[in-house]
């Protein structure tokens, strides 16, 4: 598999580390145990297109949101995480 890093260009799979589903959002501090439990443990087992977190540890160390079809491994988009690169969100 090859992933086109928005900072480094097209690179091979070995440079990246997979984390998993990018959909769950970390609950706010007072969201309660149920919400955090869902965030930590509950995942959809998607057969098809899903957004995933990937880490370009063998390159620029950016976290990427990769949209991938789990059936075909086709990658339809790669976006840097909100805080990737030198940019500060809201600056």
């Amino acid at each position, binding site marked *: *598999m090859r992933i086109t890093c928005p900072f480094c260009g097209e690179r091979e799979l070995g440079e990246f580390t997979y984390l998993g589903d990018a959909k769950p959002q*970390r609950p706010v501090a007072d969201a309660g*145990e149920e919400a955090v439990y869902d*965030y*930590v443990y509950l995942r959809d087992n998607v057969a098809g297109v899903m957004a995933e*977190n990937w*880490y370009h540890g063998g390159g620029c*160390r950016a976290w990427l949101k990769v949209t991938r079809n789990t059936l075909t491994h086709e990658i339809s988009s790669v976006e840097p995480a909100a805080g990737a690169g030198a940019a*500060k*969100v809201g600056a």
Partner: protein
Amino acid sequence: MATNQTNRLSSGGVIDRSTPLNFRFDGKSFSGFQGDTLASALVANGVKLVGRSFKYHRPRGILTAGSEEPNALVELRTGARREANTKATTAELYDGLEAASQNRWPSLRHDFMSVNQLFAPIFVAGFYYKTFMWPAKFWEMIYEPAIRRAAGLGRAAVAPDPDHYDKAWAHCDVVIAGSGPAGLAAALAAGRSGARVILCEEDFVPGGCLLSDDGTIDGLPAAEWLARTLAELSSMPDVRIMTRTTLFGVYDGGTYGAIERVNDHLPTPPEHQVRQRLWRIVAKRCVVAAGAIERPIVFAGNDTPGVMMASAMRTYVSRYAATPAKRIALFTNNEDGWRTVETALAAGLQIAAVIDARPDVSPAHRSLASKNGFAVLHGSVSGVDGGKDGVRKISVSLTGGARAEVEADGLAVSGGWNPAVGLTSYHRGRPKWRDEISAFVPDGAPPGMVAAGAANGDFGLGACLSQGFAAGAAAARDAGRNGNAGTAPVADDETFSLTPLWHVAGKGKAFVDQQHDVTASDIELAQREGFESVEHLKRYTTLGMATDQGKTSNVGGLAIMAAVTGKSIPETGTTIYRPPYVPVAIGAFAGHHRDETFHATRLTPSHHWAAEQGAIFVDTGLWKRAQWFPRAGEKDWLESVTREVKAVRGGVGFCDVSTLGKIDVHGPDAGAFLDRVYINTFSNLAVGKARYGLMLREDGLVYDDGTTSRLAEDHYFLTTTTAKAGLVMQHLEFCRQVLFPELDVQLTSVSDQWAQFSIAGPKTRDLLKEIVDPVEDLSNEGFPFMGAREVALRGGITARLFRISFSGEMAFEISVPARYGEAMARNLMQAGKQFGVTPYGTEALGVMRIEKGHVAGPELSGTTTATDLGLGKMMSTKKDFIGRVMAGREALVAPDRQVVVGIKPVDKARRLRSGAHIIPKGQTPGPDNDQGYVTSVCFSPTLDQWIGLGLVERGRERIGEIVHAHDPLRGEDYDVELCNPVFYDPDGGRQRG
């Protein structure tokens, strides 16, 4: 002496007769020529019997002339280089080659195990499952060893592989699999268009079928066109022709696997060269021109040596000038098979008869038969008379029911052609059935790939050339290369007519899969027993599961299944196709990653100095760390480690701790960021101060620990454990980039930039004063415990100095740029001589941390909470942090959790062992009363006894209790006392002093 090549034609062939080669097969000497394969050289020497079959030990000969060969498998080379199951049909001959037949004892001609044939009725499909179900231990002790001796393929080498393997990447616009007419035409078109082309050919000579079959291309004889085309391709700088290279797999994103047999054609690889190279080729487009495989027809005795695929016979005669037989019969169901008759006649061989299963034979072939005096029989071969010396007589069932017999010493068989659909089907692709050729053809292909020519089911020479050329031109265009491709090479198409015929009923064993000894009746049996689905059929009979992956047998097998179930072949379907297309040595996948280069080795900045000191090193992840520094006269490691600990506690010692992960945290929000990733607070840490921090995972369990210092308002320096250095960096980047992107903070890994030494012991300050510039105040007031700041060193460089202690002694850690690390070690030795400075290793480090009750890897086990470690009070209640909510879950705050406690043997002389289970005293050990285990132990020189740490249920409430240590692994049982985990200087006075 080498025997004569009795079956070599006096002229012709793509062989170099000026370079004779000697070789040995089963200890007997033969000769061949440069350009031979082992199989062609055996054919040239009249050797028909080359192996015994897997299950029945039937005599077998050479069936094919390529990588689809099921029978002619040999052990090639000897000793550590012996490679089992090597196909004689692809092994290039070299001078001195040694090969041995497989599966025979005591010899190939007199094989004891051929009695298996007499027991054949019990060796039917699924016999392992049926016969040896019960009793279970009989299987292990009697049946399996007996079967393993009887059945099997060659013997693997038992010594380590002495050869080297390489892995390499290549990038191109168009990769082409196969250099037959379609592949060459594709390369011409793509190359002329300006594309970067890699053309992979598994053979050692490019040309594919052009090396064996005649024909006319662009008005030139095929051989001449081939030479001209190769010359043109060689003149293109961006076209690379890789022979001896098989494209074996297709991976995501246009990545292709190829194995290059760099030096398998030599006795041993030249010095400093690899044996094989595994290529990962990244290509924008791929043209599969892998050709087609001629398929057998299943009939009784079809595995007799001397029965050969018709196209293989042509190849041996035309390409190698070697004659598999003198008097040849042909059994065909299609027009193409007749080409073997033409080739044989041209070589002066005799044709005994042609048995053609089709209703009609062309007038041209009829006149060829009458001119050359052989019969054309309409019907099928129903049996073969012969044995280990080859074919003698062929029984024919004539259309209409009559029988005939043909005397011949060779039988060429053609059942039609199967396009090589492997590569196009590797991404869960299922080929589709094409009726007019009675074969599966690709139904689409992985993205970027297209099949052309015979691989696409179009067998005519003209079609191969035009399709290949079009595919090459399109691939180049798709890759953005728009040069002028010129005109396509032109040739006529041969007529193709075929009457499907898969299996001829008859008396005797009729083999579908010759490598796994699967017969037609095995398939019928599988159907009767309910294993009808092709995936079940495959596993029940092992059809197509041998090293050839059923290249000559899969389609035939499912055709027979289709016939017995009354379904069509496409309804019956194919099994899933998976790479690799040919067997690839595990060594090639490993490449250089074996032995000491299995993984990268990281050396600490002071490694070479430590090696000079005679340090014993221990592998810690990728690192080599000094474990202890033995001195002359010390009898074991314990004596050395004990000396090192005493030297530190009584004077001063130092240890390279550069393997800790080090991260610079910069930015106005650095403190806020650390507050969210650590359970304790860092935003209120004063500049110039260090603090111990603990991180949790989001599930509430402890992740990592370390000391973090604030070097400036917006600059923290964070350390991690050695083991988690990379993972913590990844985790923190995730927190920064994904979870908290609003924070203005940047992380920089500086693990490799700083050499860090721990200097510990009551004389630490004395030693440091020799190193640090005199202007720096190192007194308790000027540099108090947990102080951290930059200092100038004598000689002018700047260091970071941290007053932190892992040993419990008065201690500092000093960081200098990594390039000064070795000099720092030498300086500490030099300057510390007067104080008796002692370098210490990781063992002494570990002893002192256990004496001090500090947790480390065995306690940070991924199952412990902060409270378990006795660090629960560090958890801030005033802020959110990673893991906060989950850490509050009921089970993680339960009062009966196993927590860190100190452990002392009741018998002071007793040695402790980590891993021992803790059981209440007086109870019989069992899972119900298992209350924890010993995590870390050491001999404490300070206490002069063994001590340990453990995780024990309610441990902190049970200080002073005597419990039982149960160690079933080592067969030890003894009593221990639970105690305060801080064995040494519990009030911490020494480290503050």
